[in-house]
């Protein structure tokens, strides 16, 4: 799904709370969405309706942010909030950005909370969210 080339990502430990990720653009083309639908085995008729499944948008956004920094291997997704604000049509471009909202230590885990924002072609918000990633303390 990724469209742009990335520079070497930093470890999330190096990024301060409030760090804003540069927006990454994705074109949600029909082949991209077809591949996503095959992967999740979605049976709703998104392709014939020409609509992007909301979790495909979220997956793009998560990938965009996670590729802007590194976490230790074995890190897992602990929680997720999402709000879907507008229908996104297949073929349009979206822009995914976000920031590090919070970092904390819990026992042997480092938790990082990411805020996610996705905008459509006209700059309108189409999705917002918050993800918590739990990374082993290394």
């Amino acid at each position: 799904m990724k469209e742009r080339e990335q520079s070497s990502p930093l470890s999330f430990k190096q990024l301060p709370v409030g760090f804003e990720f540069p927006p990454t653009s994705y074109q949600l083309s029909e082949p991209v969405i077809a591949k996503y639908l095959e992967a999740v085995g979605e049976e709703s008729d998104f392709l014939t309706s020409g609509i992007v499944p909301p979790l495909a948008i979220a997956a793009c956004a998560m990938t965009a942010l996670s590729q802007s920094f590194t976490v230790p291997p074995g890190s897992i997704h602990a929680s997720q909030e999402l709000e879907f604000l507008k229908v996104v049509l297949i073929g349009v471009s979206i822009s995914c950005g976000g920031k590090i909202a919070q970092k904390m230590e819990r026992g042997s885990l480092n938790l990082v909370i990411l805020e996610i924002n996705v905008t459509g072609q006209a700059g309108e918000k189409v999705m917002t969210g918050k993800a918590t990633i739990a990374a082993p303390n290394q």
Partner: protein
Amino acid sequence: MKEKAKPSDIHQGDILPTVVKQISQQKINLYADASGDYNPIHIDEDFAAKTPLGGTIAHGMLILAYASEMMTRAFGQSWLEGGKLSVRFKAPARPQDTITTSGKVDSIEEKDGIPHVNCSLECRNQNGDVVISGGAVVKLQ
């Protein structure tokens, strides 16, 4: 695609349509390709076997997609442009697991003249272990 849900069709206590999916390493790999998330905990069996999880696990967003499919079946386009969810990933979903989603309309409240449907939702594996739990709100506008 089902059109927007009508307030008259939704009632407190309604059970949402269940979605059942079988997980496999092949599906996890497909999701890694589709999403670009190649964290080795999902796709590298040798690496994952040496972690406390003891083996590969499915991406949380893959399992969450099943819950979203349930919400789409129940609420159609209302979910796509007025849905909100908040979940915790409680346990890993592993290759060979069968994941079943469930959900229920807990309440319906009016805010600024717009009905908001509050739902609880869960994804469980074949042993009944909760993999995802949380809630969702759908605005019926």
